[in-house]
């Protein structure tokens, strides 16, 4: 167990600790919550980043299982357990490794409720981490949430800070639909405000993390912190940037988006996935349709370059959307 979870309410907490706390709490609440994944048990150090540390010691090796490197078997086992009422939390170490178990996620976890006519459902949470910045190159750090958002029957959740990771994880575990829960690896150890213990953050609801009247910046996952930084910087120039953290990427909170952009008439969408055919396209399309003729500027998108994640540091840095790019996009829509 990370030390954070044993103290009453720490002053700050990072995402590793926050997710750990949520899992600990969920396992304590419900014996149907189990954890599966590579290296997740304590004998294997509780996950490569320590997110599941302490859980196997506390809840036993039957409920917290380190698995072989067999992603199809991991998700398959989780699905089978889920359809008979367990609430598995399965880890796919890196988001890219969903490529070796897409069938299980997309054809089974996401579709079984529908195909069975509602007789079975899959209350499964898939935890996965990703994000460029650590020089892990082309196959270890891409954001692939658009694939899952395009798949009916699975929710996609991407917290931007430790407290949200905690509250959203609890909601995912106790949600009756499969959820893909995306953790940003480079931000794992960034400290944040602690969550209210036991408080679940609703899925499908966005969060206004900065209020402003001039432009709406919409993001999710780690890069929300860059959006905030830009908002704070521009606030000094009296530019009011409203930052909307989606929290849930699919289904996303269209109402909150339209309310905000309806007010600001300007929108910038920011994500770390490559821009073309990314989540930003859907959001932009919905904004454009709902607010047709009412926008002051075309919706801007800020995403990664259209290429695999490059290794070399200067390339990797240029690949990931920067605060400068976000700021430039904000200034573009303000022109």
């Amino acid at each position, binding site marked *: 167990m990370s030390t954070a979870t044993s103290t009453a309410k720490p002053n700050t907490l990072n995402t590793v600790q926050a997710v750990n706390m949520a899992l600990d709490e969920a396992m304590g609440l419900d014996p149907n919550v189990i954890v599966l994944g590579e290296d997740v048990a304590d004998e294997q150090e509780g996950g490569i980043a320590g997110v599941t540390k302490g859980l196997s010691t506390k809840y036993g090796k039957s409920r917290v299982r380190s698995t072989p490197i067999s992603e199809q078997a991991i998700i398959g086992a989780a699905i089978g357990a889920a359809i008979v009422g367990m609430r598995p939390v399965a880890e796919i170490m890196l988001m890219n490794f969903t490529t070796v178990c897409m069938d*299980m996620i997309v054809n089974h976890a996401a579709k079984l409720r529908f195909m069975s006519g509602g007789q079975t459902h899959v209350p499964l949470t898939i935890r996965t981490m990703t994000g460029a910045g650590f020089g892990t190159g082309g196959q270890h750090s891409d954001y692939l949430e658009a694939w899952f958002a395009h798949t009916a029957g699975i929710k996609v959740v991407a917290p931007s800070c430790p407290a949200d990771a905690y509250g959203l994880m609890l909601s995912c575990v106790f949600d009756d639909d499969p959820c893909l829960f995306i953790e940003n690896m480079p931000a794992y150890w960034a400290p944040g405000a602690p969550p209210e213990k036991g408080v679940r953050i609703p899925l499908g609801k966005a969060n206004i993390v900065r209020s402003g009247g001039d432009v709406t910046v919409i993001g999710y996952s780690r890069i929300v912190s860059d959006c905030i930084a830009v908002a704070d910087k521009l606030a000094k120039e009296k530019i009011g940037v409203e930052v909307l953290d989606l929290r849930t990427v699919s289904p996303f909170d269209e109402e909150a988006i339209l309310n905000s952009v309806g007010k600001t008439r300007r929108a910038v969408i920011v994500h770390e996935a490559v821009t073309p055919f990314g989540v930003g396209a859907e959001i932009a399309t919905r904004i454009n349709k709902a607010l047709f003729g009412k926008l002051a500027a075309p919706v801007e998108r800020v995403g990664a370059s259209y290429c695999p994640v490059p290794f070399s540091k200067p390339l990797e840095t240029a690949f990931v959307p920067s605060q400068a790019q976000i700021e430039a996009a904000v200034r573009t829509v303000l022109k």
Partner: protein
Amino acid sequence: MKSVYVDIYRRMTLIKQNDERFRAVIKLGRIISPYYPVRGQEAIPAAVSANLTNDDYICTIYRGVHDMLAKGVPMRALWAEIAGKATGTCKGKGGPMHVTHPATGVMVTTGIVGSSMPIANGLALAAQIRGEKRVAVAYFGDGASNIGAFHESLNMASLWKLPVLFVCQNNGYGEHTRYELATSAAKISDRAAGYQMAGVTVDGNDPLAVYAAAKEAVERARSGGGPTLIEARTFRFFGHLLGDADNYMKKGEKEAAMANDPVPKFRAWLIANGHATEADLAAMEAGIEKEIDAAVEFALSSPNPDVAELRRDVFAHELSA
């Protein structure tokens, strides 16, 4: 013991007669559905299921009506599902490749080759964690033994001693491709050794052999001894998909298999060995035939699902229109 044999025969007959009727009704165009015939493979799920209760789980595949019927899925709901009706097991939304019927333990039917296995592990895992005595059966074909999911599943099941049976219905072909051209093992059960798992090849047309192998495997699973790979050799009498020409088959192969039809053979054995009389079995068969009549009638006269069903069961909450 007598009752078990007769019970197996009952399940085989259920399968045989339903398959015959499915093919007939579909050929007449009264139901439009892709259909993967199961005639010839009756003995396998019939004999396996005789070792199972409603508490036990199965995961099966597109070619699965035999597995479902043997496990006890009610005929009317099955027929209605294949007819795409609102009264089907899955309200018509799943169809023949995705029949689910939790009450009888039919938890997943998948159209993806190999994918019954990883999920069966999960069913077994839940039973293991909860300390229940249930077992899970994964049915799959010979072709499926060459896909990655097979390997991952057997390895995990063996490591964790999951109460699961991997039942390979080796009918000699995967679609149009003959076993030897696709599978590098002389026997699929040879692969069990690579997982330190019990593995056995049996004559899948011999209900007694399948029954004995399944009994041993179910006992092993229930007592914590872990999984078993059972390869049951059989043949599909009507090709891959109803309507196929089967030109890829060896000359005479199908005819030879049909001449060795497991159903009448077992019937004759039951009578010859005094397990049942001709009259008993004829009555049973006639009873099943009547049930099928009723199921077909039920399916054909049932209403279609409402188009609003497109918005239901995507998530727990209904989508807005």
